[in-house]
């Protein structure tokens, strides 16, 4: 009966599956929605939405679908104030009245509310007809009626429309998160097993056990070996700010995927702007002071690290070749290209990921010049799931 709602959710970008929808139907049959819109709101959210980042989308769609219930004119302030302070909550549940109320459609209730607002000129608490607190009428706050519109007040018997209307999950809405999993799956391939590392011998070595047992005249002798562990260490260098702002979304997705891949033995992340100069920043905000010397990195981060550079490689040629260049609080006398070459010389496994899409516009621009130079120096891959796979394969074999 709600199938429109299902399609609306899907069209608003919520990936609701038929299975989940059927689960919701089952839940409704079991009466889990408490025959109220509030109940239905929380029930459908718990069953259909699986991430707090999607709650806002859901709230939006929910409001849209049930919007006709929502639009009543703004209420007078006095009325709201009084409704927010319930004076009493008498034990006045009236089954007959509730049954009558349940027969009303939301439209009727709304119409009644508007009429009643026109008629009403005083406070009413505990009654069946007027807008009031603790009563059995379909409007008001803290009442005992099963359905109806909550006017003012907070929490407890909060009615659904208001709940969704507050859109309190707006902050969580973070479309960036979508798709990290695909990237993460690609990074899983970046592993190399080693038995040379220092670890306790905890795994049964079957072959050696058989050999040793034979040597031992058939008396069992168990041999253990070191477990296989991933020994891949990663150095991630990311371009930040300026022209990279266009790709922030994509880059933060990549960053999340790398940061969440717990299988690396070690992960180091540094930031630069446009090109690598004498300093590498430890923070994407590129504050002067939050940095380390590039030479320190080259000296201290072993050549067995696999290096991933992320950047659009688009800059003014002078930024790549200039001898004296001032960059985010750090002076440099060595041209950026030299630093890039130093990295290339030190690390056997190094790839460049480029979030920029090659388009006609870029091709003619002078930024294309540096792009081509850097591309000729490094193995450059566009930042897509497919190309990332290739780049990682490349990282696993020596250049």
């Amino acid at each position, binding site marked *: 009966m709600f199938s429109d709602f299902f399609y609306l959710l899907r069209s608003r970008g919520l*990936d609701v*599956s038929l*299975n*989940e929808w059927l*689960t919701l139907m*089952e*839940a409704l049959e*079991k*009466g*889990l929605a408490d025959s109220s819109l509030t*109940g239905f709101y*929380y*029930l459908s959210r*718990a*069953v259909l*939405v*699986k*991430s*707090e980042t999607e*709650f806002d989308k859901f709230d939006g769609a929910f409001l849209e679908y049930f919007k006709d219930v929502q639009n009543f004119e703004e209420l007078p302030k006095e009325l709201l104030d009084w409704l927010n302070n319930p004076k009493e909550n008498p034990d006045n549940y009236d089954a007959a009245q509730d049954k009558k109320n349940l027969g009303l459609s939301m439209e009727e209730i709304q119409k009644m509310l508007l009429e009643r607002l026109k008629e009403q000129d005083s406070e009413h608490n505990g009654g069946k007809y007027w807008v009031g607190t603790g009563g059995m009428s379909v409007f008001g706050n803290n009442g005992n009626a099963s359905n109806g519109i909550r006017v003012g007040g907070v*929490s*407890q018997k*909060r009615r659904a429309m208001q709940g969704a209307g507050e859109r*309190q999950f707006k902050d*969580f809405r973070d479309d960036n*998160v979508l798709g*990290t*999993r695909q990237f*993460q*799956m690609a990074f*899983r391939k970046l592993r190399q097993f080693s038995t040379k590392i220092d670890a306790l011998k905890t795994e*049964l070595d079957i072959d050696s056990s058989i050999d040793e047992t034979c040597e031992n005249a058939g*008396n*069992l002798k*168990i041999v253990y070996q070191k477990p296989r562990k991933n020994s891949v260490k990663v150095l991630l260098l990311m371009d930040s700010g300026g022209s990279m702002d266009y790709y922030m979304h994509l880059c933060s997705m990549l960053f999340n995927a790398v940061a*969440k891949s*717990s*299988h690396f033995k070690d992960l180091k992340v540094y930031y630069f702007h446009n090109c690598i100069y004498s300093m590498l920043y430890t923070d994407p905000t590129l504050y002067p002071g939050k940095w380390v010397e590039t030479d320190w990195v080259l000296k201290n981060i072993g050549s067995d690290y696999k290096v991933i550079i992320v950047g659009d490689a688009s800059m003014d040629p002078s930024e790549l070749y200039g001898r004296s260049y001032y960059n985010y609080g750090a002076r440099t006398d060595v041209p950026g290209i030299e630093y890039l070459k130093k990295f290339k010389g030190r690390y056997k496994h190094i790839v460049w990921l480029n979030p920029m899409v090659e388009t006609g516009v870029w091709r003619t621009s002078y930024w294309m010049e540096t792009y081509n130079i850097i591309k000729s120096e490094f193995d450059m891959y566009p930042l897509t799931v497919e190309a990332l796979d290739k780049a990682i394969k490349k990282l696993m074999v020596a250049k």
Partner: protein
Amino acid sequence: MDTNNTFNGSSDYVASQELMRAANIAIALEKPLLIKGEPGTGKTMLAQAISKALGKKLIIWNIKSTTKAQDGLYVYDVVQRLYDSQFGGEGVDDIKKYVKLGKLGEAFSSDEQVILLIDEIDKADIEFPNDLLWELDKMEFYIPETKETVSAKKRPIVIITSNAEKELPDAFLRRCIFHYIQFPDKELMEKIVRVHFENLEQKLLDEVMDTFYWIRGLDINKKPSTSEVIDWIQALEIGGVPAEKIKEEIPFAGVLLKKNEDIDSMEKSRRRFKF
């Protein structure tokens, strides 16, 4: 709805209406309840509270980065069997003797309905949740060594917690009922604190709440959460700090903030606001 299996919070756990709703939906639909939320909002406590409220046994399966799905089902102790066979020990023929059920197996084979808590599922390998799809759906698994199928006598109530360190696979999510625990607002927080400290002075509590939410509003790396505020109040009580001094001095700030940078930036903003 089966009223015997309805969760309404417990004497030492304050649950929001929405959380109770989600828990009851999951119980009624016999689906795993996935709980996400900031660390310290009582995700793990929830399972304990439900177990207490419904009077059912709680089985906890703590997930670590090395945990494999298989560990939860059963472990076949080959080495022990090999050793035993050397000495012709009794019962070596009986493979069953060497098959030990894991936490999931334990929950399935229990005669009474139990609560199974799979704690911090996101700590494990990214493929881990997918390896459990069948087992959580059908509530059964097969042990090839003994040619036995272990299936749940009474479907356990499954509660899964996640700190969102990793994305969970879609196929897994689709089978769960989801609830996100929001950080409690002042009102709910006061209730929670009251559960732990019955005789706390209102004045002290007010000061604590003001200071606590002020600190949470600062730009710091690791925001203090419920469990930290409870530790803090304990420290304040033991230290006998008068209520007026709390805002002024913020004593025992180390209980709330675990990072040096955070304490520094709090001190800075404190001076600025002249608390």
